[in-house]
């Protein structure tokens, strides 16, 4: 199994990548639930604009 790379930057091997991806996706999901459940909260804006 070879490592996927982008300009020499190595990425985790597929199984490890899937595990890390799942942890990050779960963290994002629960953050969104938490933010949406706050009294004056809502789902944060996804747009990544500095300007």
């Amino acid at each position: 199994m070879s490592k996927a790379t982008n300009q020499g930057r190595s990425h985790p091997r597929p199984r490890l990548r899937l595990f890390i991806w799942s942890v990050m996706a779960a963290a994002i999901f629960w953050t969104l639930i938490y933010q949406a459940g706050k009294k004056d909260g809502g789902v944060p804006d996804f747009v990544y604009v500095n300007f």
Partner: protein
Amino acid sequence: MNAPFIGILTGVCLARVVVPKRHFVAFGAIASAVLIGAASLETLALIGGTALVVLYPIGTLIDRARASGDLRGSKRWFRVGSALVACAWILFKINREFDLPFLQGTSPSSVLLRTVGFSYFLFRAINYLYIRSLTSLPEKGPLRVLFYSLFPATLTSGPIQKYAEFCRECALPRPLDWANFSLAAFRITQGYFYKLCLAVLVKHFADQLIAHPSLTGPESLAIIVLFTLFTFFDFAGYSHIAIGFGLLLGIRVPENFKQPFLATSVTEFWRNWHVTIGDWFRDHVFIPAGAMRRGGIYAAAIAGFVMLGCGMWHGFSTLFLAWGAWHGTLLFLEGVTGSKPMAPADRHGPSYWSRILWTNMKVAMGGVFFLPSWADVGHLATGLLRWW
């Protein structure tokens, strides 16, 4: 990102699978225009319009002058094009920062205020003109420069892709196979994890600390560290999203962060933090100004001025000027004293880690100038003096 935008993006990615490679540029330009138009019509009009009305015609004039052996003419057109885009950017910045009365309330003002990404477009536009003045890139029409200017993944905040590199990617677009799709999904998730979870978390703690009416030394130091981490997670997160998003659209976007917190000098830090802006300044300021050739105090002074300019590029305010002056002074001092990053073989033990700590401290101290006001900077600085 709203629902229609995600819908269009999904449609574009799916349509890309069936579009022949020879039509990739036309497809990419149209898809980018639709995506940007859906998000902000003003941005599409301003950046797309500048690409079609200024960049492409001047690029053609540069090419013609160079092809006929008129190198001075080619350079002249390069300067004219760069000056035009830079003037538009200055107008844009002044209008944003100071709300000049003669523009306020008028149509151009409101258009400018709803525009995003012009600051980064400035870098791409100058690189396009520069590359055309250096080498012959066969241009069949304005579609490739339109695609380059509007490329949605990097439009708002980089990474700054070089035009020659973008052309190579257009010639061999990345297929939307499982390997690329899973990598893109990973990078996008990583980006949102940084931005939505880690950046929000550290900012929450920083905001709670800075709200204290009377800060102590450790609290001030903690705020500085948290603020540096926030900047990293926010910007590196954004870069991860841009790289993943670019891959979905078939273009490999350059990396922007290469373990900057392991740098052993401020110069090395700037080679690893926002890498593409450093490359841009090397290609368009350092080398043309002869800094690489002359070295010494001259190169150190150019590095200092570049950081000052970088500060002003962030915004026309005294805080950004101070940030640029801080980093400019650090780079100048490192250049003058001949301080160099540690050799790979020496990177171990206490001296290595103390160099890393010292570098990060200097960088983090500059980060205080990104606080909203001088009052906040003063509040933090007062706290730093209170250790007993």
